[in-house]
């Protein structure tokens, strides 16, 4: 028997340009397991040097068109940590609303546009619309709902404009936000129904034990701030991120391996969050856990799809709460930064795809002297390679389609390769 090779040069239905190289020999041994990235580098950490503290979030927003809000929130908090800025409760709530709008948009895209076609037998959402018109129309409505909330709060859906260091230049009115309450309630009901459909798809399983990493707070479902925790007992403040997470360049692979210091690769993203923040789940999200059939202790990367469904409902519940309770009577002015001394700051948030780190140093004029950005897909890529390794022998033994199964695993992580690319050494040939 010959060895089985998988070489997917350009993985479709993921953001950015990535490739899969897997080889299983005739003895069932995995000889190679690579998630290679050929996305062109854009060198953000280089050209951010010399730029001012108040434009960092605007520039880093352009790292990713799917999760610009996550990059903005992280950059803003890193800058605010550097300058000791305390934001108002109004700003905190509106930023949470922005983050949840991004979850609704990004997760709907991932679950219905990028993942579902694999399991329902289509090449994409457009061809799926013929036979599954209602599901596709629902998916479009969900994505639009997330985008519309983001547009009202942030001034624009893709690369929002009103969030700035210290607050917002303009806040939405009650009249602008209230109409979303009915759409959100309707979306929740429909999403709980769709959860059964998604939960019923035929996902493969991987039983390996993994370390899951996310931010956490006892007081709320953490998206924009929290302590860094893991399923193996890690628990530190966000400033200590660089003390506990290592990135190493290894010979056999073209991506850097992110590891928990002294341990192994780890997984970030929806499943890690739901697992580690299970006591912060909303009533609706708990219903979604049951409807989609998610085991809360699961460490199986394929269960990221189920966790996305849970988080869409969580985001709907959170958005309803915020819209009902946020105080919009007086627009708080953005808190000003006092420049004049060199300083540094870092922040961790949860982008839709998982843990996102930004760290900056500034000179006395407020210009960046050093930038350090680690996006979710950089955290996950080595883990994804480990899981390709774990998945492949079983698929080959059962005579399955290894290429297709590897692609499905990659999509379960919903990698965002444009984001990841700064941390990956690009494969030769550009």
């Amino acid at each position, binding site marked *: 028997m010959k060895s089985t090779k998988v070489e997917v040069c350009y993985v*479709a*239905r993921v953001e950015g340009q990535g490739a899969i190289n897997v080889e299983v020999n005739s003895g069932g041994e995995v000889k190679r397991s690579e998630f290679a990235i050929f996305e062109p580098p854009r060198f953000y950490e*280089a050209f951010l040097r*010399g730029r001012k503290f108040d434009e960092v979030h605007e520039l880093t927003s*352009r790292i990713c068109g799917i999760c610009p809000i996550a990059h903005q929130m992280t950059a803003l908090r890193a800058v605010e940590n550097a300058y000791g800025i305390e934001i108002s409760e109004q700003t905190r709530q509106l930023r949470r609303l922005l983050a949840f709008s991004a979850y609704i948009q990004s997760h709907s895209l991932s679950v219905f546009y990028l993942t579902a076609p694999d399991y329902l037998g289509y090449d994409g959402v*457009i061809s799926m619309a013929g036979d599954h018109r209602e599901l596709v129309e629902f998916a479009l409505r969900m994505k639009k709902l997330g985008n519309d909330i983001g547009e009202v709060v942030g*001034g624009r859906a893709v690369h929002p404009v009103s969030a700035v260091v210290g607050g917002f230049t303009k806040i939405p009115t009650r009249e602008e936000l209230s109409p979303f309450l009915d759409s959100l309630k309707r979306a929740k009901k429909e999403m709980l129904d769709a959860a059964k459909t998604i939960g019923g798809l035929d996902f493969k399983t991987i039983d390996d034990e993994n370390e899951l990493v996310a931010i956490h707070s006892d007081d709320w479902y953490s998206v924009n701030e929290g302590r860094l925790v893991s399923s193996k007992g890690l628990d530190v403040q966000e400033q200590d991120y660089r003390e506990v997470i290592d990135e190493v360049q290894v010979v056999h692979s073209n991506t850097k391996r992110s590891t928990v210091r002294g341990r192994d690769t780890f997984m970030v993203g929806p499943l890690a969050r739901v697992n580690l923040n299970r006591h912060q789940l909303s009533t609706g999200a708990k219903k979604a856990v049951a409807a989609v059939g998610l085991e809360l202790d699961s460490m199986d990367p394929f269960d990221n799809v189920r966790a996305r469904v849970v988080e869409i409902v969580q985001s709907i519940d959170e958005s309803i709460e915020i819209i009902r309770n946020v105080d919009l009577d007086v627009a708080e002015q953005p808190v000003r930064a006092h420049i004049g001394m060199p300083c540094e700051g870092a922040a961790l948030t949860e982008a839709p795809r998982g843990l996102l780190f930004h760290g900056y140093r500034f000179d006395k004029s407020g210009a960046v002297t050093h930038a350090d950005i680690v996006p979710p897909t950089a955290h996950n890529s080595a883990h994804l390679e480990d899981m390709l390794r774990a998945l492949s022998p079983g698929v080959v033994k059962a005579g399955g389609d290894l290429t297709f199964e590897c692609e499905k695993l990659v999509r379960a992580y919903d990698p965002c390769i444009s984001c990841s690319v700064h941390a990956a050494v690009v494969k030769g040939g*550009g």
Partner: protein
Amino acid sequence: MLTENKPRVAVYKFTGCAGCQMELLRLEDELLDIVEKIDVVYFMMAQSKEDMGPYDICFVEGSVSTPRELEELKVIRASSKVLVALGDCAIAGCIPSIRNYMSQSEVEEIVYDNITPIRSFRVRGIGEYVPVDINLPGCPPHKNLIYETITAALQGILPDIKHHPVCVDCKLKENVCLLTSLGRACMGPVTKAGCGAICPSVGRVCEGCYGPMSDANPDELAKVFRRAGLTEEDVVRKFRKYAGITEEFRKEAQI
């Protein structure tokens, strides 16, 4: 109509953030109607069908910054009737073009431990290398502009790209002028309209994300900025942002 059959449409991504493709996908209300009229034959972010052409309309998001992209661009130009530069990166590199003002080895060494496998050169818009039929400005171009481009192409005409400055739209919105009334460094007077003056409408200066308008006068605006108290470095940062390598802004984008 471009062809007897449904026009074959492709969406490519080069060096960029996927935000322009996301804006295209934000046509949620129109998407199912559009695909009745066109055939989306290549769109890797959204579907796993790899149809290598020929195409009636080809949207390209992102700039050219690697040898592979340059080769691919020439191939898709040859197989496309209408080639559309989708957004600022494809037009003139957008934000990542800031690094064009640093040396290539310097930027590579800041980001990578081992620069040997890096195949990257300074970012350029696709029009630098091949003829482009339509430039859709913006970071990102508004979805309505993308929609108009498709519907116009179906009728064999060009979309209506605005050439006047953001100021015109800002006046129509009756915003207080941030530049003349408040002395703030707004890029509106030299920036192409099309966004709906969204930033000044939320109390923020225009940062220039639709690129230079026709017949812009950046030299004069730079003088206004200096009079308002901006340092030489501040002025450079203003112009070296979304369109720092365009012919219009190149002079003000360097010290």
